[in-house]
């Protein structure tokens, strides 16, 4: 089938300092990934087109972009899922550096701000594993799935406006530790998240949950953190 592909372009170095769109007509299979189309354009038509990708099957989190107006992983959406008119734009709310490539530093900074690591230095005397029941493990299973693709954070209307907001991805990663029975820094994390840029900025717009390619219940995780804070 013939696909009409419209791609956002921005590259001040090459004189394209005003964002604009290039269009391509491409012969594609319905089962092609949108990422395959981008690779086709880059390989055969215009090598300057730039985007990030690695695993090509939705597990590394490199290629979140706005496809037909909604955040998705280009490698996890097929042509037949989005039709033959496809518009590809960078995710919103992070500075665009070149074409689909945005500056991820602010995103990772927010992640780092919520202490996304286990805090507990006590290990059993025999050096073996700490015990944790399957139920305790299940409690935070959902939020361990995050691949930090930023699809959620950059779909959030609050984040678009307010870069002080840590955003759903950071909260998801905090949730993963707050509800881990082995962790000892839950209180500190909750304190960070109850501050101005924390969970209470969330207006339950739900775009994050809709956007998450790992089908994490993001809004639910945020609500659970809010409840943990307000007791």
């Amino acid at each position, binding site marked *: 089938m013939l696909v009409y592909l419209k791609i956002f372009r921005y590259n001040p170095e090459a004189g394209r300092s005003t964002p604009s769109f290039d269009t391509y007509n491409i012969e594609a299979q319905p089962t092609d990934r949108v990422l395959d189309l981008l690779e086709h354009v880059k390989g055969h038509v215009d090598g300057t087109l730039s985007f990030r990708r690695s695993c090509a099957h939705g597990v590394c989190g490199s290629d979140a972009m706005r496809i037909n107006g909604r955040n998705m992983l280009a490698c996890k959406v097929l042509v037949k899922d989005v039709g033959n008119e496809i518009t590809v734009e960078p995710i919103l709310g992070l500075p665009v550096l070149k074409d689909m490539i945005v500056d991820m530093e602010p995103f990772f900074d927010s992640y780092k701000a919520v202490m996304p690591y286990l805090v507990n230095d006590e290990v059993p005397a025999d050096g073996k594993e700490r015990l944790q029941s399957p139920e305790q493990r299940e409690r935070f299973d959902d939020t361990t799935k995050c691949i930090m693709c930023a699809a959620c954070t950059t779909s959030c209307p609050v984040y678009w406006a307010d870069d002080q907001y840590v955003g759903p991805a950071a909260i998801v990663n905090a949730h993963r530790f707050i509800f881990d029975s082995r962790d000892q820094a839950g209180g500190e994390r909750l304190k960070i998240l109850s501050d101005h840029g924390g969970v209470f900025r969330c207006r339950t717009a739900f775009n994050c949950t809709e956007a998450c390619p790992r089908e994490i219940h993001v809004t639910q995780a945020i609500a659970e953190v809010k409840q943990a804070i*307000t007791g």
Partner: protein
Amino acid sequence: MKPRFEAIAWRAMRYSGILLIPLAWFHVYLQDVIVGVHAIDINYVAVRLANTGWVVYNFLLLAFAFAHGMYGLRQVSFDFVRSERGRRNVSILLLVLWLVISLIGAIALIGGARPELITH
């Protein structure tokens, strides 16, 4: 403790919202739909404000709806005012507005309507 404030406000927003359903809906249905603006004039208001029950009702409405709304506005404005200083200024401004307007409303509620002052 600022953080504590956001958490309490979050709960307050939800409880006050739930409370506002009977308060605000009844008010709106009564005045705008059942009675209607064509039947409302200062005498109508005067009669109502002479009744303590209605005064209390209006007080509750004023207190909850306005606080709820102003806090909501604070949240909305925080989306766009990102600096700590800016946010403090906005908070102060909204607080002052809230107090002044509430005060005006409260005085009017207590003082009641004064149709006798109309001179024409």
